[in-house]
């Protein structure tokens, strides 16, 4: 494969996977944040 083409093809796949992984992390963080908040309220630490 031509060197410059290889660069672009790799960049494309890298960006795609960056989005997938990035969004996954985003959802995980939102979930654990909400979960932590919920647990702390229920355990009374916020009263």
């Amino acid at each position, binding site marked *: 494969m031509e060197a410059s*083409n290889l660069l672009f*093809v790799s960049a494309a796949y890298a960006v795609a996977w960056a989005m997938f992984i990035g969004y996954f992390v985003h*959802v995980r963080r939102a979930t654990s944040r909400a979960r932590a*908040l*919920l647990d702390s309220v229920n355990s009374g630490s916020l*009263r």
Partner: protein
Amino acid sequence: MAHAALSSTTVTAPRTNRLAMFGWFAFVFLVASQIIAIAISPPDRDMGDLQKILYVHVPSAWMSMLAPFTVLYFSLLYLWKKREEDDLLAAASAEVATAFSGLTLVLGMIWGKPTWGVWWAWDARMTSMLVQFLILVGYLSLRALVDERDRRAQWSAAVGILGAINVPIVYMSVRWWRTLHQIQSSPATVDPAYVIGLRLNAFAFLFVMIYFIRARYGAALLERAAEHALQDAALGTGGSNHGS
């Protein structure tokens, strides 16, 4: 309105396992589809190996075109039934749609630079995708800037419906605009050698998108439960654990 005390485990436990399994399935399917597509496709006559970019760009574009209709569906459902779940699903769909639209744009540029020599050429499909991206960003901004829950849900639904209706209109008008000014066209994808790879990846991306929407929705449900719990604690209408 009193709510039974929700712990994070009761809200999501039964669903989480099914969702996680689906997530794993989607991930494996995606990896397999990408490997297969890359392995079995010969270099294109004109594009050479750049053709392989299409296995991420085209499925991403297809998902980006599908997602706004998901927003439309849940927005309509919300205005009809006024269930908060539908609003949260619409919002989750919009967020995922934004991610896929943005991805499509970047991949289009990565494909465009070596192909056309420029990062951006106001091509009809890319331009309308850009407008769609901005419409979605507007939707998310509205949600970020409105705090009252009912108002946010109702306004989001109205904005989501109008935005979704506008997407095909924008595509049509931009396409006419571009044909008048003659410009290069987007990649053609009809060559049968590539159809298998495209179809596989299309399904893979679809599974990933469904997983993302469902997972984001799950997080939103938790956020809502936490909000309710906070409210109850603040108002002193707390649940059974520690009656106030």
